[in-house]
């Protein structure tokens, strides 16, 4: 009976893997389409859509804006979130549990509601510089991912190791950098990856803060799809996916994907 159950589990896993990959394969296939319509199976192969990515209306400024916001908000969240997680893990903070819940809660809040709330709030306090409002808003989007992962990671970290390093002649920051950071490498990687993607792919918060001159990439992409869908967008997504495959391969070699997944809760 246990065997039958396990066989069922394997069937579900294989099915799940195929189901998850299906839309990605469709995108990759569509990007090589020789015609502007998505006829599958393809009647040939062409790279013409890859050449057109750069010529999409407003593509480069949007890509640059999204990269800036995603990288900066991830970096800032990694610093703030890790510091907060240390404070929570050391157990010296009054109300640590409530604070931890509050830190993670934006993850469960509807993005659209946060978007309209921030729109009104920033207007009310007279904070209207679009680029800065986007960055500050994305801090709230990325911080919970970092906090969640780092709180879980630090709960299993033995802080006496840092003390041991100090006894052996390390300075305190040196001990943190040379003992704690390597031990928590999978946590940092997964926190960074998740928060970068959460920001880079965010639509519901950005749409309320963006203006005509500052449109993030997801806003542009939805606009392309609604106006004139052609395989150029598929070509762009395929490039991003290819980059991710390389990144995942390296992550697997360096820290192991199972260690990354194990810290994802």
């Amino acid at each position, binding site marked *: 009976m246990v065997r039958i159950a*396990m066989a069922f*589990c394997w069937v579900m*896993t294989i099915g*799940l*893997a195929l*189901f*998850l990959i*299906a*839309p*990605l394969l*469709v*995108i990759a296939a*569509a990007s090589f389409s020789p015609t502007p319509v*998505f006829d*599958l199976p393809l009647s040939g192969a062409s790279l013409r859509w890859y050449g057109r990515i750069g010529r999409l209306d407003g593509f480069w400024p949007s890509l640059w804006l999204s990269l800036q916001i995603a990288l900066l908000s991830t970096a800032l969240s990694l610093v*703030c*979130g890790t*510091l*907060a997680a240390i*404070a*929570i893990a*050391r157990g010296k*903070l*009054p109300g640590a549990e409530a*604070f931890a819940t509050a830190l993670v*809660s934006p993850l*469960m*809040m*509807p*993005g659209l*509601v*946060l978007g309209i*709330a*921030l*729109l*009104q*709030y920033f207007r009310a306090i007279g904070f209207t510089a679009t680029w800065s409002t986007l960055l500050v808003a994305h801090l709230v989007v990325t*911080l919970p991912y970092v906090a969640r992962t780092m709180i879980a990671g630090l709960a299993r970290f033995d802080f006496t190791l840092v003390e041991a390093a100090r006894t052996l002649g390390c300075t305190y920051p040196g001990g943190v950098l040379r003992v704690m950071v390597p031990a928590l490498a999978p946590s940092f990687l997964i926190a960074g990856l998740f928060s970068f993607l959460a920001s880079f*792919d965010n*639509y*519901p918060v950005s749409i*309320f803060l963006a203006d005509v001159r500052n449109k993030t990439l997801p806003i542009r*992409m*939805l606009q392309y*799809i609604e106006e004139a869908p052609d395989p150029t*967008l598929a070509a762009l997504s395929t490039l991003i*996916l290819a*980059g*991710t495959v390389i990144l*995942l391969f390296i992550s*697997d070699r360096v820290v*192991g*994907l*199972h260690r*990354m*997944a*194990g*810290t*994802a*809760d």
Partner: protein
Amino acid sequence: MTEVALIAPPVAPSVDRERLTAFGFALPSLIIILGVFALPLLLLLGVSVIGPDGLTLVNYQRLLGTPYYLGVIWNSLRFGLLTTAITFAISYPAAFALARARGALRSLLLATLFLPLAASVIVKAFAWTILLRSDGIVNETLLALGIIEDPIRMIFTETALVVGAVNIFLPFMILPIYANVAQLDARYAEAAATLGASPLVTFFRVIVPLTLPGIIAGVALVFSLSVSAYVVPTLLIGEKYPTLATTIAKAYLLAREPGFGAAAGAVLLVIAIAVVTLSSRLSREPK
């Protein structure tokens, strides 16, 4: 903070300093959460009850008093529940097989969970519109296999919506469950079997309670993501299936009714807060 410090009995200076350091570490995040999250949401609640002539509940009356908008709330809940139930039914058994996998197979399977996260939700939803078209691959396959005789209309139906949403939110369900199952100590199940428990009893009385934290985390996350999803319903079903999220966007971006949009936002917020409260209470309960 200062009040607590005043009432608290004098403590050893080192403990005091440690507390101060902890507070200093927590401060940047605290400022972000209070200043850019809690305050804006409070202001939103304020906007929803303030009309041209002072306090008013007219927005809530319109939302909770008209059959159309009650239908909108039901659509959101129904979509969230369906998506959560199906992602859970797929993820829970799959997590056990995934936890047994080793080596290259494990890396490959985990990569299939991480990779979709790198593709934009917008692009994945768009891929499903291609897959589910009446001349799309799914229909062609079903026709070729003789399962159906005429193409079925799938795109812009609730089926398409839920299939797309399940696909997009699956990684958020299986990752926390997998993390939990992978840490499961096999000796508990062995001990239960030694003590005479049947496999079914072992599963329901030992395995399920031990994996409950992962289940709660996954269910809470997927439900809150799907109940408030905007891009997925917009692309896969459109106007036919109005949800709270699409109603909010319409009220702000098209109709210019911030008060009404804020009220719809408040309803979504109440649902989200209920999920957070319930899940943190459930996972804290001693088993």
